[in-house]
C-alpha cells in the first residue's frame, strides 16, 4: 500500500531539489559518463516520483560536445505536460552535481514505448500501487492484493500514461501504467 511518507521520500529523493552550487566540484567536460547516468537515475519522474527518469526510459543518450553535456530525451506522450518539468529536473539535477553546461535535445524516433521502462522501475511502480504495463494490454494482477480478478474502469487516468482499473477481490481501484 502507498503511504504518505513513501510519497514524500520519493519527492525529496535525488539531487533535483538540492541547491545548485552547494559545495560540489565542477565536473570536468569529457569525464566518464557512467556516474552521470547514476545521477540521472536519482532524478524522480515529476508525476510518479517513485521511479527515476532513467527507469522511465526517457533518457536516450548522454554525450559530451566540447564543454557541454548533451542529454537526449524522448517524450512519453505528445501532449504530456510533464515534459517541460522533466527537462527542468534534468538541468537542475545535473547542475547540482557540478555539470556547468547542459543541452537537452528531443528525439522522437524510435518512439517511446512502455518497453523502455526498467525492471527496477516496474517493481517500484507495483510497490507504489501502480500496476506496471503488460504486453497483453492490461494489468496481470492487482498491485494491492495480487488478485488476478481485475477489470477496466476507463482507458484513461490521472495522467496521460495511466488507465484506471479495479480489483474484484479487495475492491480497490488502482492505476495501470498503460501500454503503448
Amino acid at each position, binding site marked *: 500500500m502507498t503511504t504518505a511518507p513513501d510519497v514524500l521520500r520519493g519527492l525529496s529523493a535525488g539531487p533535483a531539489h538540492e541547491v545548485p552550487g552547494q559545495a560540489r566540484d565542477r565536473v570536468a567536460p569529457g569525464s566518464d559518463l557512467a556516474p552521470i547516468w547514476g545521477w540521472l537515475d536519482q532524478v524522480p519522474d515529476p508525476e510518479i516520483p517513485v521511479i527515476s527518469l532513467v527507469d522511465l526510459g526517457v533518457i536516450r543518450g548522454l554525450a559530451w560536445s566540447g564543454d557541454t553535456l548533451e542529454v537526449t530525451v524522448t*517524450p512519453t506522450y*505528445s501532449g504530456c505536460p510533464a515534459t517541460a518539468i522533466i527537462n527542468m529536473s534534468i538541468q537542475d539535477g545535473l547542475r547540482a552535481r557540478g555539470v556547468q553546461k547542459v543541452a537537452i535535445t528531443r528525439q522522437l*524516433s524510435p518512439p517511446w514505448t512502455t518497453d523502455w521502462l526498467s525492471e527496477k522501475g516496474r517493481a517500484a511502480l507495483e510497490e507504489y500501487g501502480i500496476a506496471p504495463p503488460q504486453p497483453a494490454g492490461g494489468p496481470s494482477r492487482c498491485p494491492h492484493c495480487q488478485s488476478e480478478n481485475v477489470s477496466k474502469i*476507463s482507458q484513461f487516468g490521472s495522467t496521460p500514461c495511466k488507465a484506471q482499473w479495479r480489483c474484484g477481490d479487495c475492491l480497490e481501484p488502482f492505476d495501470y501504467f498503460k501500454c503503448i
Partner: protein
Amino acid sequence: MSETFEYLLRLGDSALILGHRVSEWCGHGPYLEEDIALANTALDLIGQATLWLEYAAEVEGKGRSADDLAYLRDAHEYRNLLLVERPNGDFGQTIMRQFLFDAYMVPLLDRLSAHDDPRIAEIAAKTAKETAYHLERSLDLCVRLGDGTEQSHARMQAALDDLWPYTGEMFLGDAVDAAMGVDPSALREAWLATVRQLETAGTLALPDSEYAHKGGRSGQHSEHLGYVLAEMQWLQRSNPGAAW
C-alpha cells in the same frame, strides 16, 4: 508556398481544432471517467498539433513559431478538415466525430510512418500509437451506444447521419497531396472496413449518400471555425506576445 508547409498545416490544424473542440468538454463529461478520457484525448491531440506545427514553422522558414501559427492565423488560413470543426452537439455527436476521424488517421499515419521525409515519418510513428489508442475507445463507445438503448441508438444514428457528409473530404486528393506522394483516396478502403463495424456490431445504418462538403483543406471553412478561433486566440490577440 511550399506543398510541405501546406500539408503540415493540414495535419497540425486538424489535430489542433479537434483538440480544442474536445477540450470544450473538460468539466462537462457525462461521468468522471469519461470527462478524464476526453481531456486526455484533447491533450494528446494538442501535443500532436504542436509536433506538426513546429515542423511547419521550420519548413516555412519565416521565423514563425508553432504558437504563432496556432494563435495568429485567421480562419481562411486554417487547413483543417471540416469534420473536426463541427460543433460538439451531444456526447454521441462528439464520440462519433472522434471515431470517424480516428478511423481515418490510423491508416494515414501508418502510411506517413514510411514517408520519405524522415521528420514526417518520425512524427507519424509517434502519434500513430496514441491515435490507435484513441480509436480503441471511440470505436468501443460508438458500438456500445449504437447497440445500446433505444435512445442511445437513435442519437448515434442521428450523429452518423449528420457527420457523414463531412467524411468525403478526407479522401479527396489534390496537388498538395500529389506533391507529397500521398493519395488519400487509397485510404478509404481501410477506413470503411473500420467504419463498417458500426453496422455489424453497432447496429447502425451507414448513409448511402456520396455527397461531400469540402474546402477545409484549402481554407474554405464553415462559420463554426471562426467561433473556435475567437475563443482559442482571444488571449494572444488581446495581449500580443503574452507568455507564462
